[in-house]
């Protein structure tokens, strides 16, 4: 018997970047313990650090750990963090590019 598509089953196919941004928001909320926040509370272009969510160096470390455990992405130098950890949008771009680089390297 054929399966019935559940809610959101095709989101990944049609809106991969939106899906990735939402996943990153959920991961941040979970890992950084923003207990009263939902993904909708974080705007894609809100600054993550000073002036925005107010993350600090411990949170930066947790993001690095999160990227490695959830996506297999290793952030080896601090300049990569400076350049890509500004907002959810820049973080999603970074993840997408790194995953694409890895796929190309495997071909």
């Amino acid at each position, binding site marked *: 018997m054929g399966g019935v598509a559940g809610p959101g089953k095709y989101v990944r196919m049609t809106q991969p970047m939106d899906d990735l941004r939402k996943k990153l928001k959920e991961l941040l909320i979970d890992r950084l313990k923003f207990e009263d926040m939902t993904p909708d509370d974080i705007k894609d272009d809100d600054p993550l650090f000073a002036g925005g969510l107010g993350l600090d*160096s*411990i949170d*930066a470390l947790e993001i690095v750990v999160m990227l490695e455990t959830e996506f297999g992405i290793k952030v080896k130098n*601090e300049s990569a*963090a*400076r350049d890509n*950890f500004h907002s959810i949008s820049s973080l999603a771009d970074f993840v997408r590019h790194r995953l694409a680089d890895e796929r190309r390297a495997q071909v």
Partner: protein
Amino acid sequence: MSWLASLPHQIPFRAASAATRVDDKTIEGVCVCTANDLMPSGVMAVEAMAQLGGGLAFADSPAPAFLSGIDRCEIDRAIVTGDVIRFVVTLDADFGGTFRFTGRGLVDGVEVIRGRFYLAKAFHLRGTEDTEGSPL
């Protein structure tokens, strides 16, 4: 001189009595709880894990650093005078001068305490605006 003796924490606040570095990411140590401890034994046990983490991160290249976070710390039973706690502390991750460790301590082979600790290199201790080396 062992690195323990070079820690800024000495009597009465050197909580780790002995330590053996197993590898780059693991250190084992001992905390002996005595009636002369400056703080309650549970506090000294937490401090011991942080000091062992410091030994792991900075034994080869000493640098000013401070305990910047404690997370998920649990103590299963009262830690009392006479307990000899054997710790295993592992380095989970480090980035931009911030280090995360996981530690657990056993008394007579039974785990009684565990926690996650953060140490940070002291980029700003002198109260200047100099952020050289700071990650973000």
